[in-house]
């Protein structure tokens, strides 16, 4: 672990909305405050289908985690995990295989504290306060170092988080840094917001981005090619990098609507993919 002076974190300002709590609100949760709900309502006023997009994202997460366990990968590193809502990685994974180990990483101190509370008593899941922009901090934390013990493949989850990194934050470098630390056979499970062929009209996309800009977490949507760049050093598993709902959809029965529900295109608001490190 790197020796650094423990400078005080930036103070917690509960008058500022948090992306984690807004996300929770989209999903129907109540782990949020009025400022979060107000921001979420503004975004939803621009594009009412946002909750469906989040649900499509959650649904992909669930399918991808189950896929990982089915592939024998039972160690999970979930970066940008946010507020633990129902259907979290450790629930899905440990249900599929009780030996599954999960380390959550988030830079929102409230989300981290909440995760700590939720995970108390679960000795196979823990949370680390760190920022994806500083992958060395993540890799240097003892829980992650332990999780990444050589020889055991790990599923690295970067679900709905990379679009909060601007190009200036060098997200590719961050992903590459993490990739290099992963044992062979590890998986990258990734979703990323896009406006390429997405369901939102450009004006709506503009307004939604405006909301996130205003709360200090600007949203950087990317094209499919740019998202594919994150898989450098990984081999994409079938069906490749696709709209979230098109990634190994489960049989919901004949005539069932897409997991996006009423708005069948919600899944197209993000690309999803799983890659394997050779």
């Amino acid at each position, binding site marked *: 672990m790197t020796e650094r002076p*423990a400078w005080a974190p930036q103070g917690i300002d509960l008058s500022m909305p948090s992306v984690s709590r807004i996300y929770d609100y989209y999903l129907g*949760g109540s782990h949020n405050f009025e400022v979060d709900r107000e921001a979420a309502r503004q975004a939803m006023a621009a594009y009412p289908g946002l909750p469906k997009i989040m649900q499509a994202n959650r649904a992909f997460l669930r399918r991808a985690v189950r896929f990982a366990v089915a592939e024998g990968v039972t160690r999970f590193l979930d970066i940008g995990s946010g507020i633990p*809502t*129902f*259907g979290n990685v450790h629930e899905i994974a440990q249900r599929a295989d009780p030996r599954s180990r999960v380390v959550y990483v988030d830079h929102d101190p409230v989300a981290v504290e909440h995760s700590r509370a939720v995970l108390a008593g679960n000795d196979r899941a823990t949370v680390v306060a760190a920022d994806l922009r500083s992958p060395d901090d993540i890799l240097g934390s003892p829980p992650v170092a332990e999780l990444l013990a050589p020889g055991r493949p790990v599923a690295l989850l970067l679900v709905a988080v990379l679009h909060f990194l601007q190009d200036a934050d060098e997200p590719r470098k961050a992903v590459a840094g993490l990739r290099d630390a992963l044992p062979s056979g590890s998986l990258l499970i990734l979703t990323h917001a896009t406006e390429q062929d997405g369901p939102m009209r450009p004006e709506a996309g503009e307004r939604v981005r405006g909301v996130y800009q205003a709360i200090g977490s600007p949203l950087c949507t990317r094209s499919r090619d740019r998202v594919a760049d994150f898989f450098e050093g990984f081999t994409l598993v079938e069906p490749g990098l696709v709209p979230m709902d098109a990634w190994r959809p489960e049989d*919901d029965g004949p005539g069932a609507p897409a997991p996006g529900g009423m708005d069948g295109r919600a899944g197209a608001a993000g690309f999803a993919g799983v890659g394997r490190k050779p």
Partner: protein
Amino acid sequence: MTGAPNGRTLYGTAAAQPSPAPEEPARDAEELERTRAFAAIWCRAVHPAAGTPMTRPEFERYLRPLAARLRDALRAQPFDPRPGAEVGAALVHGHCTDPDALPLILGAVDAYLPLYCPPGAGRTAGEDRARCTRLQHALAAGFARALRERTLAEQEAISRAALAAQAQTEQALHTSEARFRAVFEGAAIGVGIADVDGHITDVNDALVRMFRSLDHPVAGRNVGELVHPQDSPEVWGLYAELVRGDRDHYRVEKPYYRGDGSVLWTDLSVTLLRDAQGRPQYQLALMEDITERRLLHERLRHQATHDDLTGLPNRALFFERLDKALESGGADEDFGLCYLDIDGFKAVNDSLGHGVGDQLLVAVAERLRSCVTGPHELIARLGGDEFVALITGPGAQRDVTALARRMLDALAEPVRLDGRHLSVRASIGIVDGPVGELGAAEVLRSADITMYRAKAAGGNRYEVADADSDARAIARHDLTNCLPGALDNGEFFIEYQPLVRLADGTVRGAEALVRWLHPVHGVLGPDQFIPLAESTGLIVPLGRWVLEEAARQARAWRNDDSCPLPLRVNVNLSPAQLRYPSLVAETVAVLDNAGLEPSALCLEVTESALIGADEEELRPLRQLADLGVDIALDDFGTGYSNLSYLRRLPVSTLKLDRSFTRGMQCAPADPVDVKIVEGIVSLAHTLDLSVTVEGVETGTQADHLRILGCETAQGWYYARPGPPERLHALSLADASS
């Protein structure tokens, strides 16, 4: 699966994927089928709005036991609606939390439950309808209660998390604050904090010590008050940018007044601290006391840029300022430069010693310093007795001559040193003009040349540079620069012009004439470089070389048995050589080395060199004459000759200038010329001097001169100057004729 008392339990159980309860046994397969059919319809209606992460099949499986409970409640005897509330709660726990789902839930129950779960025996459809309605009421209440519990629990959980996070942050802040305090108080560098209005709120002990300001605290003052006359021009601009938020940091060297009025020099680093929204909030100043370092630096700088002897700025500083003045290209920027050299300073040094010379320089420096009227004027000592004054700014061109006059005036009164009164005269070369046209080296060279012009014009004056005199001087200067190398490189050679005895036309000797084969300018005659060699002192080695060369040549002629007569050689002696103390000894040595008797050599000295010479100055010539060396008075008749003086000179020959005999080139000869030459020859013979005539160009002329009694002739009629072999040939031809 009721509402959880706290978040942890909620998430430990309810938040996990709810497991469907085992379906209660149906009474028969047909009833089971009907219940499942209801669950499928119910699922299809509710799932899209449910917000659950469960897939539809999962959700449908989740609904089946709930459907069975409703079915059984509908039938139970006696009727009890409470299972409806439990179903409502179970739906919430199944993450079916969207209020919009409730109408769909109830709508499906209302429309399809009685249809797929028909009443058993003994109850009417109306009775069942009423039971179904009451079940829906209970379900709605259970849903609402569970949702409320869940909401409250989640709100409580997130609040706890926020509190915990805040507590942790505060703890970290506290630790950090303690750490910062320790740094702040223990730091060796001065630390100060001010708000963006400049109000200084905190300073550490190190800063207080630096300012020696116990009586007059720094804290509480405003940053804006801390101005100092030596502040660099940009420092307050940087400060303004920082407090405006346009800049996050700057670092400067800044002086402050200490409490006791002395100056404190600091290496100051200022950082802007912003609040969470990025608004400028505080400024943090870190300062290191560099007063000592700066003083040392200034002292070293002063030493490096000032003259030890006079304390004036030195050459380095002068050139720095000159370069700066010449490049700062304002439209109306002028410069003026006076280059001053003390006339005859070397004589002071030589006669009174260097100590007095130095004192004189100090006194001159002091006088010149007093001529400066403002910061746009600089007096520097370049070295030796050379001083320079530089004026810059508009009007410099106009003011520079006034400055030159002031400088001459300042030196007019004799300097008193050790009871002596020393008159100081100086020559000044002035260069002026607009900046941006000349470089420093050109300016100084022009000033130097112009100063020499002032000296040549008699000294104690100034001259102003002009392009023509510069060009002439520069050409001269270039040749002068090449001279020393030319001697080393063997670029000089000697031509010989025969001296013919008029009586019989035999060659008796030759005058050695030095030439310079200049690599660029070709062959140069003595008049083009001898004056330069005289002014630089090179004439002494050059003269020695000519003498040696000519003596060697005379020896060679004499060694040649075919040569009928022992040939003599005439060598020119410049005035500078006359004053050269080793002249006699070196001449004797040259003759000895060549194995020549003194009478084989004739030294030619110009008339002008001997005019006014006293006995002391004539002594070397007299010694040489006593040894047997012939001395010829060259160019006789071109200067004003005091003929009575002639007899005191140790000369044996007069060389008559060509101007006297030009009138005899044709027949009949100019009678006035004939008379004059006749007179001179007569006088010479009276004084026992022989006469040699230069510039004989015709046979008629030669005849006249012979008749007039001249002994020797020299000129193109006989031969132009040429290589030594030609003379030999001429001499042979002469003997055979």
